[in-house]
């Protein structure tokens, strides 16, 4: 389904601000799998998602989606196959347009946009039903500007928009991080519903140990631009937030040891 072959990405290469964000990531994501990506700050998890979405081109390596080489495809071309929910609720919607207009835009994701009416009566009815099914009580506010909604409501609608045309791959980039706990729970519940209902292949980045442990059927842990753990099957089902914290502690200890070793070498040779 999605093959990520040894991709590397360095930002500001050759400058004092050089960041080696991805240092050779290899992953194969099967159709219908729900993959959670976790990692410390700067581990490259969001960069991985952005590389798949096409926000930038990788320096080396290959990306294949459904057997097609998409490595050099721009973001708008990949959008035909990829649905996306951003971390910031304000990034995923056009604030001055109405809820219905935002949904109409999503109903044409990756397709030709011609001079047909964006909001036909049939489409309005379909949207009413889709929004009503979410249970947020927004179905009678389709004519309201989406910018007037709360972050949680906007993120829920962004999720609906991402799945309006069934995507081959759904990318969720810490999509509950900017929400209050209640809204975050609501969005997670909707996320699970959408993914299971449409059997979507999903790549979800999260900072929450709880979400990482209990959601998805596979977990990838990244550190410094590399995948260090790939947990799936029964191991993933048994995983608890405490296990994940232990694994992060291991990483932290190893990094500290690395730093001590580096300091010792520095003292020895400088």
């Amino acid at each position: 389904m999605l093959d990520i072959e040894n991709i590397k990405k360095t930002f500001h290469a050759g400058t004092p601000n050089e960041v080696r964000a991805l240092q050779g990531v290899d992953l194969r994501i099967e159709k219908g799998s729900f993959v959670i990506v976790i990692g410390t700050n700067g581990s490259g998890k969001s960069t991985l998602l952005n590389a798949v979405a096409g926000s930038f081109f990788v320096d080396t390596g290959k990306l294949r989606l459904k057997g097609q080489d998409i490595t050099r495809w721009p973001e708008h071309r990949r959008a035909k196959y990829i649905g996306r929910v951003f971390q910031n609720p304000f990034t995923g919607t056009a604030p001055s347009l109405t809820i219905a207009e935002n949904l109409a835009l999503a109903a044409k994701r990756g397709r030709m946009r011609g001079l047909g009416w964006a909001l036909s009566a049939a489409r309005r009815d379909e949207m009413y039903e889709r929004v009503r099914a979410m249970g947020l009580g927004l179905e009678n506010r389709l004519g309201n500007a989406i910018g007037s909604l709360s972050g949680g409501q906007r993120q829920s609608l962004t999720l609906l928009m991402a799945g309006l045309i069934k995507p081959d791959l759904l990318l969720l980039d810490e999509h509950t991080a900017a929400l209050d706990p209640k809204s975050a729970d609501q969005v997670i519940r909707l996320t699970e519903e959408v993914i299971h209902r449409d059997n979507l292949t999903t790549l979800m980045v999260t900072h929450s140990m709880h979400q990482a442990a209990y959601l998805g059927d596979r977990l990838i842990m990244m550190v410094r631009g590399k995948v260090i753990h790939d947990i799936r099957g029964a191991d993933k089902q048994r995983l608890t937030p405490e296990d994940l914290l232990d694994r992060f502690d291991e990483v932290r200890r190893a990094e500290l040891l690395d730093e001590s070793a580096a300091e010792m070498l520095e003292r020895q040779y400088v």
Partner: protein
Amino acid sequence: MNLLLSTYAVGLILALLALGVLISFRILAFRDLTVEGSITLGGAVCAAMLFAGWNPILATGAAILAGAAAGTVTGILATRFQINGLLAGILVMTALYSVNLRVMGRSNLPLMNQRTIVTTVRNFTSPENKWHIGNWDVPAQEVYVLGMVSVLIIVVACAMYAFFRTNLGLAMRATGDNENMIRALGVEVGWMLTLGLAISNGLIGLAGALLVQYQGYADVQIGLGMVVWGLASVIIGESLVGSRQMGMLIIGSIMGSVVFRLLVAIALRWGLNPNDLKLVTAVFVFAALVAPSAGEIVRKRLGKAIAQ
């Protein structure tokens, strides 16, 4: 009364400019300074073609295409060559000054005996024909011209409103609202921006062509201060209609252009030195910009004072 009719007519013609500016500044959030060059280009192309004996409708159509071409160039510079939008507009505007001189062959081109859309409409009736409106005798020819311009504006406004309700138009509105979002939904933002600037400057080219035909001459300087004119119309219009809905923005921009033209005419009538016109124009725009926020502050203070 004649002055009032001509004020309305010019206000309505320049409403096309305001609609173009509405697309670039408000819908695409692109600070497009091509305007000053493309309105002149539209006028120059139209005048040169009329001078060469072309049909006025074809000449007007060519002016629209010329304006659209100018907008396309600005769009390409900004998106394909990654030049700052403001700078891209300045570059095209500067280049168009020479292009306009080349098109016209000189800095001023009077249309003395050429058949234009305006003269054609005027010739539908005799110059002696008068309409009695209130206490005034109004030349029927001028009423006809005003009617033609009004019908044209209504057609353009309806077409624009309809366009922004289509899938393509909606994607264009979203491009100015949230570029990241619309890109993630499969729209090539650069192409959309270029198309928007082409439509915007096409309308501005049309404004130039009609203005030249109405005034009876083309001048290389007619674009001077037109960005401010367009902005003022859009801002005044927003204040008048008090809504950011698409239909209301279109109506507001048309109203804004006419009101702005009226303000200028009143100022001139009260003895304003024409040399001070641009200064007064800038003051009007400043007032229109600060009035809504100043009004809000006054309203809040009054509310507080009353509560105390």
